[in-house]
């Protein structure tokens, strides 16, 4: 097969190049690899055409159930994505560039990232941000490590209401660093504040909470921030960014660092990625931030321009003393986040957040009408809430999947004693008709 579409040389060009190099064959160029180390097998199947490749990928996608009515969240959310997001982030000048090391020919990426950082700061009510981290879980871990560096302490207190996935990622990151991770078991789907107060002392570097939390509850952490600061620790919040259209921001609550997963901001579900992690912090913490940061400056003619700044924090300069090992980030996904937020706009984000809450509240009422079903928490919720079912949620969910409805996330596998609990997510994409259908199907499933 002729593969010259990606490897363009003709045989004549290859000969010409070999003679310039002064070798007889391409194979000779591999002479530095000792013969006994050369690959004995290479069992990759033969290649195929572009058309056949795409057909194969279509066949793979078709093996998944494409038409699932989603009432699941758990960190990834099925939101609208305005058409401009695909079209503009699909500009090849953005997506086939790399990290903007050379600012003069990368102002497009650099200005976009500066605007992204601005959007994240304004959304979170904090002062500084970076050019993105990997995802929600790893951004929790990066924020925790940041707090260890800042305070010089070695204990992280984690609210058990934080996503179990993010908690697991955090523990994996910290597992070799002699850091104590203390988890506070939830109390009725909320932070157990008495238990937190009991462990909060001057050995704690940070307290990590999530808003809304894994159960869907929203909490005001303003008083907690004062309490945490009183112990000399930092308060880190993992935040669902769409909720910030209406919910009190991390900055307003006095949090020091806000992180979260940016998938909901214009990135498709895509079986879990790519999305991006965001991070924002109080200004005084900037030198301990991980990852790339874009800063504003001027050129030699006084013209405004943007550049990667404070690079002395980073691995390519500081090596093992860097604030993080991150190099590639999720820049294109962050760009999608910026385009999404700009498309929706200031009032639009508030409207979108209200729409999510309206739909979820409607669903809550409809679902609670089903005999034996109650809404577990009395707390205020955003677009997720926890139901208590009259029987085990896992069997109910498995049964409803067969009918094309992903009914929610059963809590039993994450919280002992919660086998009957189900976390339901309702985004703006779910119509009243779909919610009514869901309520009907759930009632049927519970009768069976």
């Amino acid at each position: 097969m002729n593969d010259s579409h990606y490897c363009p040389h003709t045989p004549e060009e290859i000969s010409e190049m070999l003679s310039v190099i002064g070798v007889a064959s391409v194979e000779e160029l591999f002479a530095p690899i000792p013969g006994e180390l050369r690959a004995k097998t290479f069992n990759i199947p033969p290649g195929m055409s572009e058309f056949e490749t795409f057909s194969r990928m279509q066949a793979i996608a078709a093996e998944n159930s494409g038409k699932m009515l989603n009432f699941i969240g758990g960190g990834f959310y099925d939101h609208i994505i305005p058409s401009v997001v695909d079209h503009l982030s699909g500009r090849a000048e953005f997506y086939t560039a790399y990290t903007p090391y050379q600012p003069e020919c990368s102002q497009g990426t650099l200005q976009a990232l500066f605007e992204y950082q601005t959007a994240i700061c304004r959304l979170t009510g904090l002062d500084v941000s970076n050019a993105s981290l990997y995802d929600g879980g790893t951004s929790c871990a990066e924020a925790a490590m940041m707090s260890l560096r800042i305070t010089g302490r070695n204990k992280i207190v984690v609210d058990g209401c934080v996503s179990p996935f993010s908690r697991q990622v955090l523990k994996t990151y910290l597992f070799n660093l002699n850091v104590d991770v203390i988890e506070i078991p939830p109390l009725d789907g909320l932070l157990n504040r008495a238990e937190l107060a009991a462990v909060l002392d001057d050995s704690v570097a940070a307290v990590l909470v999530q808003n809304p939390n894994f159960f869907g509850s929203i909490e005001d952490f303003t008083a907690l921030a004062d309490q945490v600061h009183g112990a000399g620790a930092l308060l880190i919040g993992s935040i669902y960014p769409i909720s910030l259209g209406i919910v009190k921001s991390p900055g307003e609550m006095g949090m020091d660092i806000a992180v979260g997963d940016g998938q909901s901001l214009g990135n498709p579900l895509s079986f879990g990625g790519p999305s991006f992690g965001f991070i924002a912090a109080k200004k005084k913490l900037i030198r301990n931030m991980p990852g790339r940061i874009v800063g504003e400056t001027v050129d030699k003619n006084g013209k405004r321009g943007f550049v990667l700044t404070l690079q002395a924090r980073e691995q390519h300069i500081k090596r093992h003393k860097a604030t993080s090992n991150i190099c590639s980030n999720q820049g294109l996904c962050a760009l999608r986040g910026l385009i999404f937020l700009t498309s929706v706009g200031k009032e639009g984000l508030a409207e979108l957040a209200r729409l999510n809450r309206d739909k979820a509240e409607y669903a809550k009422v409809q679902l609670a009408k089903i005999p034996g079903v109650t809404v577990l928490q009395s707390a205020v919720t955003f677009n997720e809430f926890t139901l208590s079912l009259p029987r085990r949620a896992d069997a109910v969910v498995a049964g409803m999947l067969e009918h094309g409805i992903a009914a929610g996330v059963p809590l039993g596998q994450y919280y002992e004693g919660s086998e009957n609990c189900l976390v339901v997510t309702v985004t703006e994409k779910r119509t009243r008709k779909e919610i009514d259908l869901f309520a009907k199907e759930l009632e049927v499933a519970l009768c069976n």
Partner: protein
Amino acid sequence: MQLIYEQSTPGRRGVKLPASDVPAASALPDTLLRAEPAGLAEVSELDLVRHFTNLSRRNFSVDTNFYPLGSCTMKYNAKVLENAAALFAPFHPMTALLPGGVDFCQGTLGMLYDLGQLLADITGMDEVTTQPLAGAHGEMTGILLISAYHAANGNKAKKKYVVVPDSSHGTNPASASIAGYEIITVPTASYGDMDLELFKAAMTDEVAAVMMTCPNTLGLFNPHIKEISDIAHSHGALMYYDGANLNAIMGKVKPGDVGFDVVHVNLHKTFGTPHGGGGPGSGPVGVKKALIPFLPQPRIVMDDDGKLLLETANPGTIGRTANFFGNFGVMAKAYAYIIMLGREGLIRVSEQAVLNANYIKEKLKAYYDLPYDMTCMHECVFSASKQLEHGVHAIDIAKFLIDKGYHPPTVYFPMIVKEAIMIEPTETESKAAMDAFIAVMIDAAQTAESNPQALHDAPLTMPISRLDETKAARDQNVCCIG
């Protein structure tokens, strides 16, 4: 160009949201309510489209310019890969984690499993986890796996060090440090790789791992790699392979055959997925059998009937390194790339990547100092030391190239080469494109002698000239106020 926030007009909208078909819920209580909406820009759809389209035009990219950024493998990104990845946009990752959910995700789980098998064959490993989200994330995952292996063998307390050559990527020591190790750095010998004698002297039973990039960041294949691996193993240390330079060796040599125990692969480099202005990448990690018990969860496994399942309760696991299954969309592109090119195509990729780098090296070595003058693999590293005699630095040559329409090579890396200029053409560039680049590099060298000021002044054709980086670091203005 104006910032998008400077074009904002109150009340303007970029998209129409769905109308509500349900009753309005009660307002949030004051204690939970945001005081003011977030200060996002308010622009029309056309304003938004013009802004980002015009911003994009201020970028060099692979699709618009030759981009020989060494160590980053900026090859052409086939368009069909974008279409392939878009097929998977609707699939929610939580579905697979629901009871009975794997039945509805056999396509996506199967693709990840197959990709793991293909990467295992390419690298000579036994199993691959696709969870790590980028190369450095793979490094950290790999070192944590090594740590778990040593702990399981009762050696956790004893194994304190990770050895890296001084030519390594900065991520190697940073990742090992985050994973809890102290770093031993071994200098480079005259043959362009880690000094074998100094390495032997540094090795003790307290070393947990040796991290190598092979070919290394000078683009050279280490002739002593097997011996290094044998020595490491004799001290109970494991060998870690930084896959950043895998593009040079596909089908030619497998890291697993050389003695490496853990490998990460940068899908965005070798397997043709776009770099996105900084990411997303994807950094799957391959391991030898002895490390399988420690792989991250959920682990995708196949039962006897060929059905894909998720293993979530392995007691030895290092846990979870990301929330779900890794950067799936990136992996879909890489998978499509591998099956499209196939066995012969991948071999041809490595052959022509190596051919192209050697061609540029030969053509430019009369004009630029080549500190390690030998057959290179996929990239070659020059020094601007000759030009420095005229007061011209590597950065000046880089800026001159920008004026001529070329993205500069990587400069000042690896750090062991003074005024380094690291060129990686990749296999997708034509001879004509490289000849034009070579001519401009020669022009730069000649201009350095005849008119060094011209290089100091560059670039002149861009929207901005050289920036005051000190001011950026001092002001720390990283967010538009207002």
